[in-house]
């Protein structure tokens, strides 16, 4: 398996991500034009921003499960995609090298859930 290196996402791509996140856009469409290692970075970057905004918005009540529970559970995702691998193999960051289309699909769903969460944190913050 090819090593997926972090840190390959350009600064301009990160700023574009913020631009779309803060305009309430879903950012999964940006993923179609990116290389595999960049997609993994997108997921990491958007996750970090989601947690940061969640912490500011929800303070000590923040729980990462309020984000992850909106994502399709792994066994259901695998069934939907005809995957017979063990559940612990189903990580976008790992599968994307051997089942690229499936890995991209999973990461795209996750970043859209995270985008919506950030938009909620921004708009429901008082």
């Amino acid at each position: 398996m090819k090593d997926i290196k972090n840190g390959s996402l350009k600064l301009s791509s990160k700023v574009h991500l913020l631009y779309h996140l803060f305009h309430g856009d879903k950012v999964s469409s940006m993923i179609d034009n990116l290389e595999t290692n960049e997609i993994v970075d997108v997921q990491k970057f958007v996750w970090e921003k989601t947690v940061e905004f969640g912490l500011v918005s929800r303070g000590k009540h923040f729980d990462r499960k309020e984000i992850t529970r909106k994502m399709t559970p792994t066994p259901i995702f695998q069934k939907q995609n005809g995957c017979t691998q063990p559940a612990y193999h189903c990580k976008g960051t790992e599968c994307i090298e051997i089942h690229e289309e499936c890995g991209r699909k999973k990461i795209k769903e996750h970043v859209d859930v995270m985008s919506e969460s950030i938009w909620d944190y921004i708009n429901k913050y008082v």
Partner: protein
Amino acid sequence: MRIGELLVVSPPGKLCEQFIASVCDVLEQKNDETCYGRMPVNDELAVHIYGVQLNGNIDAVSWDLISPKLLGYILLFDWDDADSLEKLSPTLDIFSAQFHAPLMIVGCVKNTTKIPMSPDFYEVAGIPIEKETRFSFCTATDPISARKIVATLIDILLEKV
């Protein structure tokens, strides 16, 4: 007197000039592509702020000659104009790859009501993007707003010490 130097870069338009005029009270010098202002901090320290407006070819600017003495960079774009960010993008990648000084990337709005979120999310320390690189919002024509960006950049510098 000790002097610190900062560089402000923006796509074509008035942003660069407005920002430096807000921070420095007075623009000491300006022409079509560059401007310059001084911000006295106290009797012993002043910050000199240079502005470069990107008019087309970014390779026309000798960044490698400009950069070694600079303490940090502020890159401005118009938050309400996606094209403004597009024009700044190549410069973002050049700065990120070549320069190792704190960088503030700022979405400029016409007034604070246009900022899409509470200041609690961005005002204290900016939104982290990379090590020593933060994102924030400001109104370039508002001295308080513009000076907060310079203050955040100086905070990043102080964190290094």
